[in-house]
């Protein structure tokens, strides 16, 4: 769970509003109603690990909105990707998407969002010795599962995360990430689903030709978008399984994109499904910002995803 003070660790000095541990997610138990969890921004999470030479799936800290302060009780390498939350090391601004050494006694602090919402902090080798729940360390607060304390707890002041002490610098010959520009209005790849034919023609036109605004109702379960009212001829439906990125349209006609901590089944018609990379980008969009849906074919989506995994 946590370690004694003599062992190398990362100590939480201040927790901030929402910092949780996330590995790739919890798989193989969704038929029991257990959601997948994992990083809301898979892209940034994967690169934080990759830039340190960590294996795929290594746990990292997902930091929403900043406020987290940590002190190193040991020496390692670390990397921050994703949102610019004004991270500093001993008061000096840190470069993101770039590994840096972390020495004993150093103070790592996150401020407030400048660009994007979620940052990822990975350390070389991950946090050793933490015990997975149902095969995963992914922290899902709603289900009281996973995380460093095993029951879905967020990081709290005084927590000590075990470190893998390592003086070695990460491999240098790594591909360089394409760093997303969170200031731009993102075009989110949406794979049209089978129920798309139940939507009225005008609604379909609007779905792909109107900028959608990110609503206040946005968390790890899903993100509501507001805009013209989309009308569907069939509803409600019998509840069925929903994939990551499913774009549900409830009776109010406002799309709701289902993310990592979604309920496993739901009964609203769907416009289609955002790709995992589109979900990653959406997870960085603050309420009030705009997004655009762009239709994408299945094969193209898989090609882009494979190429992301190969490079990353």
């Amino acid at each position, binding site marked *: 769970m946590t370690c004694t003070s003599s062992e190398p660790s990362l100590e939480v000095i201040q927790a901030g509003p929402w910092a949780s541990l996330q590995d790739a997610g919890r798989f*193989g138990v969704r038929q029991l109603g257990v959601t997948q969890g994992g990083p809301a921004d898979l892209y940034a999470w994967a690169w934080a690990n990759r830039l340190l030479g960590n294996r795929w799936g290594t746990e990292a800290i997902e930091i929403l909105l900043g406020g987290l302060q940590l002190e190193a009780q040991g020496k390692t390498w670390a990397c921050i990707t994703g949102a610019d939350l004004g991270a500093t090391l001993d008061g000096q601004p840190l470069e993101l998407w770039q590994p840096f050494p972390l020495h004993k006694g150093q103070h790592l602090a996150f401020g407030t969002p400048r660009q994007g919402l979620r940052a990822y902090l990975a350390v070389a080798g991950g946090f050793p010795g933490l015990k997975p729940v149902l095969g995963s360390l992914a922290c899902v607060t709603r289900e009281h599962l996973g995380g460093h304390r095993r029951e879905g707890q967020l990081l709290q002041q005084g927590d000590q995360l075990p470190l893998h002490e390592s003086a070695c610098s990460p491999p240098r010959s790594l591909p360089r990430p394409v760093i997303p520009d969170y200031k731009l209005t993102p075009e989110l790849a949406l794979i049209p689903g089978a129920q798309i034919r139940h939507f009225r023609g005008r609604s379909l036109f609007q779905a792909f030709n109107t900028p959608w605004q990110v609503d206040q109702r946005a968390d790890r379960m899903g993100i509501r978008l507001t805009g013209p009212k989309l009308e569907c001829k069939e509803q409600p439906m019998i509840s*069925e399984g929903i994939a990551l990125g499913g774009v549900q349209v409830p009776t109010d006609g406002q799309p709701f994109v289902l993310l990592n901590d979604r309920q496993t089944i739901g009964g609203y018609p769907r416009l289609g499904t955002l790709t995992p990379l589109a979900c990653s980008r959406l997870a960085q969009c603050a309420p009030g910002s705009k997004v655009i849906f762009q239709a994408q074919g299945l094969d193209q989506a898989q090609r882009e995803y494979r190429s992301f995994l190969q490079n990353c």
Partner: protein
Amino acid sequence: MSFLPRLENAGMDTWLVRLFDSIDEANIDWIQALANQCQASFGSQLIDLVPSYTTLLVHYDCLKLSSDEARQKLLSLLQQLQPDASRNNAKLHEIPIWYDPQVGPDLPRLEQLTNLSWQQLVELHVQTVYRVFALGFAPGFAFMGKLPEALQQPRLATPRKQVAANSLGIAEQQTAIYPSISPGGWNLIGRGCTRLFDPQNQPPSLFQLGDQVRFQPISKAEFLRLGGDIEAVSL
């Protein structure tokens, strides 16, 4: 309307197999059979399965299979599909419940809606042996059906912010127990004292798809003796 079963695109690495267009107890054996065959046929290429009332969601590993390969695999499984009538693994659970307005705050309202006393409603509820149609909403939350017609009532217009763990609820044709504290919109009629989900157990969920469930009414004294939580409130 096109023929059933059919495959629907449900995401980059996910097919939804739609087998039926309405809820029926007989569906479960077909869906269970397809789920079992997917496990066997996809093996490590499978990431997750989500069976529900009329469908099976199949999440495969798109690094190992293209969407078309996954589709072909599913189509060939569907061609030879037989319902899993053996129910080898289906258990019959006897679940003790304390039915009382104190822990079933919607009983008085249901009395008005149905013109039956809450004792009569309880009698109806315990008469049926239910089957698990799906698991979802929360870990270990089992959707069971079908309720006797007199008990079929709509969900609450405004869901509760907090439903106490182990609360027994009814909504439309279904009944279910909330495994842990959560928001919820079902009509609450009683409370159990059985642990329904424990990640340390194998399997973690007491109820599995296709299982049969019978509810046993117990007294307050018995409920307390079995470790029932009388303090927790539904708001």
